[in-house]
């Protein structure tokens, strides 16, 4: 790739080639290429392994696996619909609860906080991301769930109980608790990326809007948020991706009931919680294969969301000026 000090244009090509192929260089290149390939190989192997292990379940249930609602090892019937439903709904609740708070916090951190406060406050919000999932789960069981049982679900049930969303006894554990704990867990990711997106908006944009006589909020909503909206959507999608794959905290507060229920108060299951709870029980190959297929579906959903998110965030990161020109 580059000539060493001893080569000149007059050195015959073959000599150059031989000189270049130093054993140390070659070995290094092979090793490092192997390391680099490991990322791709790993991704491919994982996908393949899941697909391979699911084949028994796929051939047994076909597309019916996606629509089946029963999970019964005794009768050897497995259906993924309640798990998929639980995964999607709990994550949707998480996003609905987390996005306003995250965006607001990101706006505060990038546009409003006094300079001395910016770093410490950002650090604190990001620290939420360092808390292990199982600790969230523990806090969820003993602090969040009782609080959701009463007063939250009690009040919602009393006043809005006519809505199908809020029917049923207030167990505390259930979809609402899962959504709430997920919301807390994805807050830091969305806030951090949103804040970075906001900070990347050039100050000339802010000045342009202010010079027209805009209030600070109008400047933020009409110039700043608009400019980086792709990055903001990417941030939300990344948070969604995290929520979809989250296991421990959700398993601990969702109630682990394999059912589809319109009410948020009802205990439910997600794909991740189902795998976590049932895997140790799986005593025969179809059982394990069904759980593997569930994992494959979960991987598929999270991959979809994460790829979309990365594409959005990448586009912003790579060419912020492309938007202008």
């Amino acid at each position, binding site marked *: 790739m580059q000539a060493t000090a001893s080569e000149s244009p007059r050195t015959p090509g073959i000599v150059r080639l031989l000189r270049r192929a130093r054993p140390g260089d070659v070995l290094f290149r092979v090793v490092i290429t192997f390391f680099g390939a490991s990322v791709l190989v790993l991704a491919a192997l994982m996908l393949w392994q899941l697909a391979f292990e699911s084949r028994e379940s796929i051939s047994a249930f076909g597309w019916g696996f996606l629509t089946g609602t029963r999970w019964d090892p005794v009768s050897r019937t497995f259906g993924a619909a309640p798990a998929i439903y639980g995964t999607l709904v709990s994550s949707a609740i998480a996003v609905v609860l987390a996005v306003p708070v995250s965006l607001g916090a990101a706006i505060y951190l990038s546009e409003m906080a006094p300079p001395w406060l910016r770093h410490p406050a950002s650090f604190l919000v990001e620290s939420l991301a360092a808390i292990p999932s199982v600790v969230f789960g523990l806090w969820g069981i003993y602090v969040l769930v009782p609080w959701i049982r009463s007063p939250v679900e009690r009040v919602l049930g009393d006043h809005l109980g006519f809505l199908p969303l809020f029917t049923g006894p207030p167990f505390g554990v259930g979809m609402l608790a899962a959504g709430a704990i997920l919301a807390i867990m994805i807050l830091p990711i969305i806030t951090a990326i949103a804040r970075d997106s906001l900070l990347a908006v050039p100050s000339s944009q802010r000045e*342009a809007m202010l010079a027209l006589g805009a209030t600070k909020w109008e400047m933020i909503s009409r110039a700043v948020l608009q400019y980086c909206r792709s990055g903001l959507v990417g941030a939300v999608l990344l948070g969604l991706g995290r929520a979809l794959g989250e296991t421990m905290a959700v398993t601990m507060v969702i109630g682990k009931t394999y059912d589809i229920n319109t009410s948020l108060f009802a205990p439910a299951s997600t794909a991740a919680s189902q795998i976590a709870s049932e895997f140790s029980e799986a005593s025969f190959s179809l059982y394990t294969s069904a759980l593997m297929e569930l994992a494959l579906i979960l991987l598929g959903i999270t991959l979809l969301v994460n790829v979309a998110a990365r594409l959005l965030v990448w586009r912003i990161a790579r060419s912020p000026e492309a938007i202008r020109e």
Partner: protein
Amino acid sequence: MAMMTDFQFKPPATAPDERADPGRDITCPVSEAEAWEEGMVLRHLSAWYGSFQAIRDVNLLVGPKRVTAVIGPSGCGKSTLIRCLNRMHEVAPKARVAGQVYLRSDDIYESGADPVLVRRRVGMVFQKPNPFPTMSVFDNVAAGLRLNSLFSRRSHLADIVEQGLRRAALWDEVKDKLNRPATELSGGQQQRLCIARALAIEPEVILMDEPCSALDPVATLKIEDLMRDLSATYAIVIVTHNMQQAARVADCTAVMMMAEDRAGEMVEFGATSEVFTNPKEKRTEDYITGRFG
């Protein structure tokens, strides 16, 4: 400063051809009465960034319906000065202002004055064109208008947008592209778009901070023509490091210089031709003849 009362009306020694407009009989100098009633008056204006003083004790008259240029070497506080006129200076961290700036006899810095209202009356065009990239040409021009009305339907705004674009000499070039993203325009067109955007909200004064420095010579000339046309209606204050440009477009010229402590001071103010051919201050003469700066 005693300079203010030393003005005597003298026709410019050499009148450039472009400026021999029979309809225009208003030139520099500007009378205090005029500036008070329809223009801007700066009194003992000083500005700081934190503990660094950027400008010191500036007194200036900005006359209506004419172009006032602020020239000086880089770093002498010209941009800071112009940003004090629409209260954009205070957007910078730790920025501070002392003194008074009167817009038609209203002190824009009196306590309780809302910068939002000031910026509506004093518009600004920036050095590098900064249209909003996520908005169309139409929406860019309408951006300021939409701030102020609850019901901002296209139909209501279309006339005002067209008017703004016409006044900015851009209408013919973009009338078929109103819904295209603003970033599709050339640099010179984008700058005129920014001017149209500023004009649409009907300001009283238009500030221009080196508006042509990012543009090619052809675009620059177009904007200079535009400035002369606009000065029939608005008071225009332009910051420029290009003395020839000031000589071409400005009726009045203010010269700023950096003092030893790097604070900017107003050194001379007068009719452009006077300042360039017959400067009163040695520092001005040094700058104009290129001896320094």
